[in-house]
């Protein structure tokens, strides 16, 4: 089945140690999103790609970076994780351009900071 796959499901890293989360999709969608979701809160958009065009949210910390080397893959890099970055990170895609298309979410990566 076509889907959005996030690896790993659980990631533990040390305070200040860079970490990379990955997302792949078999839907061939143009748009890929990264959200941060803390416990009992709504998903919060960090950034998104429309094809190769990168769009950063104004309040996304500089500590968070992203790469999209091709249509299928997208990475979230956290350069120096702090305790406040512990959260679920969700990747999502949408297709057909951005026009009124639903977002398809991966199962997420739960990040813990020691």
């Amino acid at each position, binding site marked *: 089945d076509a889907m959005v796959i996030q690896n790993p499901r659980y990631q533990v890293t040390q305070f200040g140690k860079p970490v990379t989360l990955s997302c792949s999709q078999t839907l061939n969608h143009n748009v890929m999103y990264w959200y941060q979701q803390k416990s009992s809160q*709504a*998903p919060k*958009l960090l950034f*998104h790609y429309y094809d190769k065009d990168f769009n950063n949210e104004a309040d996304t910390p500089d500590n968070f970076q992203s790469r999209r080397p091709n249509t299928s893959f997208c990475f979230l890099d956290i350069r120096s994780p702090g305790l406040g970055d512990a959260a679920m990170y969700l990747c999502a895609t*949408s297709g057909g351009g*951005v026009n009124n298309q639903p977002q*398809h979410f991966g*199962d997420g990566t739960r990040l813990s900071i020691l």
Partner: protein
Amino acid sequence: QQPVQSPQAVILREGEDAVINCSSSKALYSVHWYRQKHGEAPVFLMILLKGGEQKGHDKISASFNEKKQQSSLYLTASQLSYSGTYFCGTEPPPSNTGKLIFGQGTTLQVKP
């Protein structure tokens, strides 16, 4: 600007109905509804685009008011599988960008 969902939480018995509201202070381009079970990804339910629109499938339906500032999700004859947190995701104008701002969520618990 984050939409406001109400109520924050609902507890139902199987077979009962529920309504979840999503409100914005400004007119919206669209509203998306998602359900998220604990520890799982949000799952898409439906999108509403037009003022006055109503749509649904099976026993879950939604409406979007004429001013496009409020949407409601209707769950009828609830089943245990309906339990989870429901989020509305709103897309502000002026144009559809695909970017969603999610409400704070409504937790629904359906009991036998």
